[in-house]
């Protein structure tokens, strides 16, 4: 993970039009970007296009990046996500979707296949901790760019329920990822028990 300094340095190099910054950015973030793009467009060739186009946009618009509005990673993911969602809305994508049922079938058939799972890096750890009903709402919004009424229609839920799931879901997600809190708790318990043993 990029440290504060690293990220600041990267941004500076990027805004100075230093091309090695793109190379470093790629090494650091490409797997996440590619993963997101794959999650949205579900086709390797398209996902690669999305990643390439994202880096070109980043290179061209580096000056527009504003640290105050979020981390570099957030910015990169947003561009990737929007690019990928745009792709799914294009006519070409829809055509492709209808013409490749074979591939989908293969995907469904390969419970035995080993390749699907191993190339995702550590997926199972956290994602599954989030309850399904929150996860589906977050994923529809975040990965598919659905609006709240669209989510409500898709899941056949009242819009109020969608809103509250968005709220609780994000809160849960924050809890899951606020690891420092957990570490703090564990170390406190450890110190207390150590103290108890010594006494």
């Amino acid at each position, binding site marked *: 993970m990029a440290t504060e300094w690293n990220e600041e340095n990267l941004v500076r190099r990027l805004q100075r039009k230093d091309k090695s910054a793109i190379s470093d950015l790629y090494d650091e973030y490409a797997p996440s970007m590619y*993963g997101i793009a794959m999650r949205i467009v579900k086709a390797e060739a398209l996902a690669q296009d999305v990643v390439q186009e994202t880096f070109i946009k980043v290179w061209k618009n580096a000056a527009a990046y504003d640290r105050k509005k979020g981390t570099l990673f957030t910015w990169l993911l947003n561009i990737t996500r929007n690019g990928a969602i745009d792709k799914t809305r294009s006519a070409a994508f829809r055509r492709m979707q209808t013409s490749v049922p074979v591939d989908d079938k293969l995907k469904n058939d390969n419970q035995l296949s080993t390749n699907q799972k191993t190339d995702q890096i550590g997926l199972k750890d956290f994602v599954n901790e989030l309850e399904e009903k929150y996860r589906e709402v977050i994923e529809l919004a975040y990965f598919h760019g659905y609006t709240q009424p669209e989510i409500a229609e898709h899941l056949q839920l009242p819009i109020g329920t969608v809103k509250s799931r968005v709220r609780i879901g994000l809160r849960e997600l924050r809890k899951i990822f606020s690891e420092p809190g957990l570490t703090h708790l564990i170390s406190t318990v450890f110190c207390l028990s150590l103290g108890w043993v010594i006494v």
Partner: protein
Amino acid sequence: MNKDKFLQTGLLEQYVLGLTDEEETAVVKQFAEEYPEVQAEINQMREAMDQYARQYAVMPPEELKARVMKGVDSADQDSDSRASAPGPSQTGTNWWGVVLLMALLGSTLLFYRGKSSAEQDLVMLETRYAAFQKECETEKAALRQQQQVFAILNHEATLPVRLEGTPQEPRAEAVAYLNGLEKVAYINVGKLPTLPTGQTYQLWADVNGEMINMGVLDQQSKGLQVMTFIDHAESLNITIEPEGGSEVPTVEQLIANGEV
């Protein structure tokens, strides 16, 4: 609306997920500007979403990096050539403008002449690319199938059954793989003697003394063959049968068998 009430509305969460409309977005931005703690809240939620997204990371193929770098390079060239277009001269040294204009005219002419051949190349490349992509998809499907077979062979429920030659045909040898969980059966028939035309090998499962047909072996194929899976087989048996196979095995022509 005061800040605490605002935090209760859930607008922040909706904003982070891109669910707010223009008006709501403006409200959120106003609060974020006014209260640093609201901005901090947004940042924390975004951080959580980033972490969440990170969980989906997938290693891209190695060649993608070169493609990205190349894309950035050519994006640069595009903007360079745009940047070199003559703009209104500020210093009054019009000579530069003239030189640039000439250069631009010259290069436009060159580019124009190159354009039609480039277009032809592009069409050709696109066709080749499409063919290539199709080929890739086919290869990928084949590979997946291989991986499935491989996965079945490596599956913990897969049981290899070695079939050995009977006194009638001691050279015969074959290995079958049975997977009762996935209900699949494969056989490798590399080491059976070639039969004269009009005859074929057939595989049988012995279930409680009854021989049940698992299919005819294709002598041409050298690799693994898919056979019909039969539950509770006690042994597997290969007989020689007339072409097309038989309903009932010709027991005198049993040339290989193996216990499960």
